């Protein structure tokens, strides 16, 4: 792994890396040219399937397999939605890809559209990324001028338009069917699945939703080949025939209490400890780490003792976390109160729940009210149990909600209360010496800070 060279981030630091000229100097768009003349769309699907690429947006679904769910011989239109809503706390790799190397993203988008036979691709870009917007729009304009977009691309029979679509600061627009509803001009309420977008998605047509980093990987796989991609990362577990493995490079976002926060490219499977030491320059202020978010706040929390967990698609799950998520690692030093962490997490999800499912809407706001009460010195041990109950009962996994936001809300709660039970109990007893043992229902505080 010491000879690992960044590929997705290879353009970073190069002058004018965001221009077509720079991207082409680095070999960009050659794969597109070659593909359009030599390969059929199904060839591209086969390549991506063989590579083992799994979606980088959070769910880790195999990309090639997702593409095969599209109906065969559909008269069209088929839509491709590129998810650039990137709002999972701790995550910023899509921003860097779009700002620094937008043509890599676009080449991947064009190749993905070719594979899926989509003739329109919408890039749903969050409002908070004005710099990404400008860079992406200029890059799209350059592509039209160069004949990489528009009618009969590079003289082939393939035509494609790419449009940017601006969000309005709502986390739920990152959920793929929330994104679709938002694009259609409605409130971003996630849809009940099935039907899955591949069958009935945007404007009732077959639709593929892929993340920005996923399509950047598509560009590199088509250029460098399946063997290159599969030589990086963690192979599938031979003992588990259903494990698709964790192949390829990954953009890890490192933030919180480290000396050098940043986005670092490493083979899938690097550990939190390696990330902190090798890339992050260690924990800041010469302190010790206490915990870390493994892949965006939705994934739960690792204790310091769990820092050797490999950050591949199956690693975090083995220590009780939800998964790899967006591979955004947020480090908490020894001075952080886990109650404060929970408060921040609960406030986020109470604010961002779309309100459609009662367990999510009520569960997220109730958990916030309880945490506020605990922080106000009125907490009870009973509240910890109630929080745990909420954490384990809201979500798609327990089967009570439409989308995964609720699972993401529940995981930090249950991880924190299970893994830091002593600290939580101490907090409650210390701050509420006369009431911590009360079991009867108690009123919420008047002030709640969710919205």
């Amino acid at each position, binding site marked *: 792994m010491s000879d690992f060279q960044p590929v997705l981030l290879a353009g970073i630091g190069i002058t004018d890396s965001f221009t077509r000229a720079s991207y082409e100097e680095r070999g960009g768009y050659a794969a597109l040219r070659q593909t359009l003349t030599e390969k059929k769309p199904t060839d591209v699907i086969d390549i991506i399937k063989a590579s083992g690429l799994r979606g980088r947006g959070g769910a880790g679904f195999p990309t090639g397999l997702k593409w095969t769910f599209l109906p065969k011989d559909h008269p069209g239109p088929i839509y491709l939605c590129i998810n650039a809503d990137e709002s999972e706390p701790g995550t910023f790799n899509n*921003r860097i890809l779009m700002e620094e190397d937008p043509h890599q993203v676009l080449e991947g988008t064009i190749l993905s559209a070719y594979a899926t036979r989509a003739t329109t691709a919408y890039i749903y870009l969050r409002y908070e990324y004005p710099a990404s917007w400008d860079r992406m729009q200029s890059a799209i304009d350059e592509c039209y001028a160069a004949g990489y977009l528009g009618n009969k691309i590079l003289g082939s029979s393939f035509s494609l338009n790419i449009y940017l*679509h601006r969000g309005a600061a709502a986390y739920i627009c990152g959920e793929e069917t929330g994104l679709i509803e938002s694009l259609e001009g409605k409130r971003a309420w996630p849809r009940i699945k099935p039907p899955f977008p591949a069958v009935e998605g945007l404007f009732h047509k077959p639709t593929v939703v892929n993340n920005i980093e996923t399509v950047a990987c598509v560009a590199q796989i088509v250029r460098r080949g399946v063997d290159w991609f599969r030589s990086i990362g963690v192979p599938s577990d031979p003992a588990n025939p259903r494990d698709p493995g964790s192949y390829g490079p990954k953009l890890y976002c*490192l*933030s*919180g209490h480290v000396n050098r*926060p940043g986005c670092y490219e490493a083979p899938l499977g690097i550990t939190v400890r390696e990330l902190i030491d090798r890339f992050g320059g260690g924990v800041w202020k010469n302190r010790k780490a206490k915990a870390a*978010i493994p892949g965006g706040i939705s994934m739960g929390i690792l204790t310091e003792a769990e820092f050797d967990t490999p950050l591949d698609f199956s690693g975090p799950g083995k220590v009780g976390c939800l998964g790899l998520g967006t591979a955004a690692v*947020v480090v908490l030093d020894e001075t952080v109160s886990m109650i*404060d962490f929970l408060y921040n997490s609960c406030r*986020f999800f109470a604010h961002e729940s779309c309100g459609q499912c009662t367990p999510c809407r009520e569960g997220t706001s109730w958990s916030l009210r309880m945490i506020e009460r605990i922080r106000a010195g009125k907490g009870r041990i009973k509240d910890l149990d109630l929080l745990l109950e909420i954490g384990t009962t809201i979500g798609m996994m327990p089967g009570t909600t439409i989308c995964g936001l609720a699972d993401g809300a529940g995981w930090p709660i249950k991880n924190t209360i299970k893994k830091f039970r002593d600290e939580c109990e101490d907090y409650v007893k210390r701050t509420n010496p006369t009431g911590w043992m009360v079991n009867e229902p108690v009123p919420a505080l008047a002030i709640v800070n969710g919205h």
Partner: protein
Amino acid sequence: MIAPRKILTAEMIAAIEALAPRYPDRRALTLPALHIVNDSLRYVPLEAVVEVAELLGLKPAEVQDSLSFYEFFHQDAPAGIVRAWVCRSISCALRGGEEVMEHLCRKAGVRPGETTSDGLLTVEVAECLGACDFAPCMLAGSTLYKNLTPEKMNEFLAHSKVSCHE
């Protein structure tokens, strides 16, 4: 050419119509249209909602329903010249985000969501701005303010010419 309405100018209507060929359904123009109105008026009054609905062939309630979902568009009065989105999510909170927000609000004499009396600044609460490598941070207009401290907030306020309290 389409004639201007009471709120929607001919330019706004032209900008909205220019996007129409991108979508097979005019309802998809809702969010782009609201952004176009908001970019120039800094709010979307109810009259504008009615006019956008007319333009897109929708019911005003359909447009208002989507608009209100986002809690993004001001409707009663224009937002300040600069909207400052201060991040409160985890990576920023770990590095002093809440303190920076408090400092900004105290100096500007507003609470989150409010606009200064000179109309120059609206302070907004943001969830993760996707710039956690620069925590704590703030997006003001289209400028990302990185690694904020109270001193840097003071500079920002001076630069935006907001009259400060205390």
